[in-house]
């Protein structure tokens, strides 16, 4: 934990404009997600067919969709979905990758070879292709998308944890721990793992951003969230049919995705600059 809670790093982080901006954006989205029922002017699925496809007006600030649902309210509720997708898929990636990376880096030998070859194979599926492989097995659906994106994150985190382990395991204090008879397991968990927290946080923040983007893309394709879920990607795919007549339908959900993803990317960049001395 030393590295993560290093006062210098925190001071640098607080002095980093992009990190602060990112934090503000993320805090805003989290607050919106938590208090959605109090903030949203309408329910996410309240229909008013008499007012379908209304342009932004005083009653519906961002207009209504093809079923007369309030787009602002759906965007507000959609933040819950996007944040959950990011959290669950990054969580799956990190939780599976930490033991794998520790085993590969600290265990070494054949185990390392096997784990890293599996990682290589997983990385040979470019972009969202690995997620598509998983979805083609599990079938479409929001939960399956979270799992798919989580699995797609595993190789990246594993490789990073392993790299960190390799660079710390030769340090003097690890040798000291070994010489006083600490077990391999204790050394891995108590002494090596804490060194990986800072890089894991950086990668997790950046992956959070790409997880939201990928989930939105999969929902846009119809493979993720299913109707009537208020999901930003799904809203965009519905809005696409009305692009000519109702620009607001696809414009605002896209802006919401960009705003949120931007927050995580800015924070990730800021964290990297502050925690990773090599990047300064």
């Amino acid at each position, binding site marked *: 934990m030393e590295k993560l809670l290093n006062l210098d790093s925190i001071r640098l982080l607080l002095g980093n404009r*992009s990190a602060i901006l990112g934090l503000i954006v993320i805090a805003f989205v989290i607050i919106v997600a938590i208090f959605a029922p109090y903030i949203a002017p309408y329910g996410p699925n309240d229909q008013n067919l008499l007012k379908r496809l209304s342009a932004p007006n005083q009653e519906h600030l961002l207009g209504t969709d093809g079923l007369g649902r309030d787009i602002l309210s759906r965007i507000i509720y959609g933040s819950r979905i996007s944040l959950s997708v990011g959290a669950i898929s990054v969580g799956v990636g990190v939780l599976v990758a930490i033991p794998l990376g520790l085993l590969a880096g600290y265990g070494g030998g054949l185990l390392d070879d096997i784990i890293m*070859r599996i990682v*290589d*194979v997983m990385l*040979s*599926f*470019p*972009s*969202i*292709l690995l997620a*598509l*492989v998983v*979805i*083609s*097995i*599990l079938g*479409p659906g929001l939960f399956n998308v979270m799992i798919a994106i989580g699995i797609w994150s595993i190789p990246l985190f594993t490789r990073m944890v392993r790299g960190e382990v390799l660079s710390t395991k030769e340090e003097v204090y690890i040798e000291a721990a070994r010489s006083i008879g600490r077990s391999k397991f204790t050394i891995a968990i108590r002494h090596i793992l804490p060194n990986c927290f800072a890089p894991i946080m950086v990668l997790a923040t950046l992956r959070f*951003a790409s997880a939201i*983007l990928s989930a*939105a*893309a999969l929902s*846009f*394709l*119809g*493979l993720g969230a299913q109707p009537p879920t208020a999901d930003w*990607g799904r809203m*965009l795919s519905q*809005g*696409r049919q009305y*692009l*000519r007549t109702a*620009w607001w339908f*696809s*414009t605002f*959900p*896209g802006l919401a*995705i*960009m705003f949120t*993803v*931007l927050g995580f*990317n*800015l924070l990730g*960049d800021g964290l990297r600059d502050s925690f990773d001395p090599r*990047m300064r």
Partner: protein
Amino acid sequence: MINYIIRRLFSIIFIFFAVSIIVFLTMHMIPGDPARVMAGMNATEADVRLIREKLGLNRPLYIQYLSYIKGIFQGDLGESIQTGRPVAQSLISRYPATLELAGLSLLLAFPFAVFAGVVAANNSNTFLDSAIMSGAVFGISMPSFWRGLMLMYIFSLTLGWLPASGRGGDLFQLEGLKHLILPVLTLSFGSMAYLTRITRSAMMEVLNKEYVDTARSKGLREQVVIYKHTLRNALISVITMAGMQFGWLLGGAVVIETVFAWPGVGRMLVNAIFARDFPVVQSTILIIAISFTLINLIVDLLYAFLDPRIAYD
């Protein structure tokens, strides 16, 4: 060097087999009976049996895999369950459209990104740098399919300058080119943003090297220092990332092809996933993954030629 190439080729063969096993197993990992899932809800028992026999699902798993691999080497990728058409034939007719989209996107992104990255690094911590890097972070945060829809709304539906969807034919004809502009712009913008960030950080790293100070202290013109001593070295890592980007563009094309109704393999893949047409899903994924691996191999080998300092051992 020769050793490195041989080792790399071996690793490619390993990856090919591993990818083929994963792709082959996708059909067998479907919860329940794959033949029934593929036949659909309204299928009769006879339909299910027909599919099972057609795909050889009643044979032992290793025999199925061996015949699958044999098929791949003979150019036989099975038949689509939906259309009955040989999958290889569909891939041959559609893959060029995807390659065209991804290739042109990279060709457009690379020079712009290198230029923007160099300008940002040269003017580091100035307004210009901040402006370029802010543009880049916006670029990587923007959903590509939304960018596509917005471009379509502005340039096709509102201004009427460009066609909204489809492929207009040959790239070298006006109609073909016009149809390409929007999808290529949409796809390349993300890569452009990403490569700009890579170029800037690679340039910054090299600019801090002592030999750059030496070059400056020799009294060389700044232009020579930047382009001859710095950029050439920084480009090596940018080219590697650009190679990887090509793979990412092939994957990204899956989404963009759907936005612009582009007749490539990406759209075919998405349709096949919906229809649970596994022969098509398997082969499309295999082809994209193998292309990506081959491109990475070519980039790695190029890298070895470009940078003799790297001893591959």
